[in-house]
């Protein structure tokens, strides 16, 4: 048992960090929207799905004959990330306008918005399965779609018996860069101050001249863009996507957001990585079918002792 653990610990850690980074990027969208609107945006998993399909279309259009390296790889990855972020961000803004803003204007309860979120999630899944995916790929909409290989699985270096590959490094580095950028944006810029002000006290923020509509729009744009980046990285890493790809991953990312402290940007990072690592470490002992059980047990235990998550709900705390 101990032998097995030592043998599998380092490779599992690498795997956990990779998938944890993707959880963390998606978790940012849940956490930002929750921070500002106190709304759990269940359709966020579909924004992630849209990101994966944007990347699928781009990679298929570029159709590299062999995996790329060097500057070509950097350029294509950047293009992939930017386009996916733009399309997903745009989709998230549109979602807000269609599914949430009318309810907000009429002063509907949060429960109503939640139902609208679930409806939007199902609507987007079916829209893609029935219309968009057949139109984009010419194949049956419920089938899994595969992309050509963009990045070679070369081992860059090894730590003990764990091979760290190019694709692993791209996912983790890109995720960290995006999260640092977002953190700076929220904590250092005028628009970021608006987001934080709205999160703390929407009414006071309005009195201080913050346009709530603008802030909400930007929040959805940023959260959606992060999900788009996650989608691009996911597709590069796993090279497959399907209309309901966001379902399980969305639940995991939402869990990561709660684990880290919902409403807290850095919490999303911590939650995502912790969740990815715990899942993979737990799988060593009990088998991979216990991953979800382990992850949710940890969530419950953490929430028992720290109801606000590991880092707490800081987007609302006064830190202007």
């Amino acid at each position, binding site marked *: 048992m101990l032998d097995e653990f030592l043998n599998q610990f380092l490779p599992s850690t690498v795997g956990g960090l990779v998938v944890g980074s993707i959880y963390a990027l998606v978790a940012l969208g849940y956490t930002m929207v929750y921070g500002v609107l106190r709304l759990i945006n269940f359709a966020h998993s579909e924004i992630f799905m849209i990101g994966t399909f944007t990347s699928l279309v781009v990679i298929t259009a570029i159709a590299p004959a062999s995996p790329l390296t060097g500057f070509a790889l950097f350029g294509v990855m950047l293009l992939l990330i930017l386009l996916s972020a733009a399309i997903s961000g745009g989709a998230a803004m549109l979602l807000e306008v269609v599914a949430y803003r009318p309810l907000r204007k009429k002063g509907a309860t949060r429960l109503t918005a939640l139902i609208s979120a679930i409806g939007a999630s199902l609507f987007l899944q079916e829209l893609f399965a029935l219309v968009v995916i057949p139109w984009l790929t010419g194949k049956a909409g419920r089938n899994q779609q595969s992309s050509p290989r963009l990045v070679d699985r070369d081992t860059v270096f090894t730590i003990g018996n764990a091979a760290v590959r190019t694709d692993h490094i791209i996912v983790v580095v890109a995720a960290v860069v995006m999260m640092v950028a977002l953190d700076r944006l929220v904590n250092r810029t005028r628009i970021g101050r608006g987001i934080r002000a709205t999160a703390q006290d929407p009414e006071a923020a309005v009195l201080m001249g913050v346009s709530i509509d603008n802030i909400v729009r930007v929040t959805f744009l940023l959260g959606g863009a992060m999900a788009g980046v996650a989608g691009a990285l996911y597709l590069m890493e796993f090279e497959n996507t399907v209309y309901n790809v966001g379902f399980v991953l969305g639940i995991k990312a939402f869990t990561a957001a709660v684990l880290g402290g919902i409403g807290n940007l850095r919490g999303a990072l911590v939650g995502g990585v912790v969740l990815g690592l715990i899942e993979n470490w737990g799988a060593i002992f009990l*088998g991979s*079918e216990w991953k979800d059980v382990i992850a949710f047990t940890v969530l419950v235990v953490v929430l028992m002792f720290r109801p606000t998550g590991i880092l707490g709900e800081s987007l609302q705390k006064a830190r202007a």
Partner: protein
Amino acid sequence: MSGARLGRVLALAAASSLVLAACAGGGGGGDAGGDVTSVKIGFMGDLTGEAAAIVIPPRNGAVMAVKEYNDKNPKVKIELVQYDSQGKPDQATSLVTKAIGQDKIIGLIGPAFSGESKAVGGLLEENKIPSVSPSATNPGLAENGWTYWHRVVANDSDQGPGIAEFLVKAKSPKKAFVISDDQEYSVGLADAVAKSFKDAGVTVETDKFAKGASDYSSTVTKVASANPDVIVYGGYYAEAGRLLKQLRDGGVKATFASGDGSLDQQVITGAGAAAAENAVFGCPCNIPSPDVTGTLKTFFDNYKKANNVDPAIYATEGYDAATAFIKAVEAGNTTGEKINEYLKTINFEGVSKPIKFKANGEPENNAIFVYQVKGGVLKLLGPAEEAKLEG
């Protein structure tokens, strides 16, 4: 909740259609004997639903067989009536009621899936309508004591041992790693494979993952650390493709094998042609690839001409199931009861395999067929006893 209500509505609809059918059928009771010039055989399965891809090919096979027969201008023509159950047991039940009462079928090809077969078996038995399923593989179906029920494929409990024994013979492995997701079919197949490996003296390690998971890094880590000679996966093609890709990316080179749930070209698109190369699949189904010879080749060409696609899963079985009924009608049987008696003694060389039924309706020949990915295409290697792996 709403499912239960829907079920009740359907049951009501079924009951009322039964009543109507009984009224309508009052005058036509005498058509069992005498000069019958045409009879109706049903085909039932998921023709438009989620799993239609594995029911359309047997449907096409059955249509082909019936057309070939009718083109010979026989004394008694056969009309094939298609029933789209969408694979749902409740829908199948109401359709069977309609098929018996209104359409007066004298035999049924199908139902395609095990769930719906289980739901309608009793109804067919009561009304003395023989059925031959081309694709229902649940072992329990043969244990209901039904005498009108038959199938032309080996069942799931033949498949696991078939795959394991084939791999033991072909690769003489010392260690095997058996993986599955957490669905009933997957776990059942994986357990059967693991048991057969153990019986053959092969060390077995196992892992499972949740359905719908996309990151298998922990499974890959376990397999890499165990360093097995063969890997068998129980489950469906979407997961099989992703798993195979991640295993190969993780540096695992052992032979990869799986069962009928993964036997689909999509496993190759999912994994990538390079990663999928040489992967082995076992299936109770006989799917001819373009390089087959003999009667299979004739079938392949005719099927392709009629449908513009290569024959896919259960196409030959659909053809054979229809042929069983055709032979019965040819022999002058035009009632369900008589056809059923004929089926008990039927013995002919089908396209997929020799067709002969045991008393419980199971096929006498329960061959598992072996396939291997060659150059990005699934290639039929033949029945497991004769098949030879290529590399």
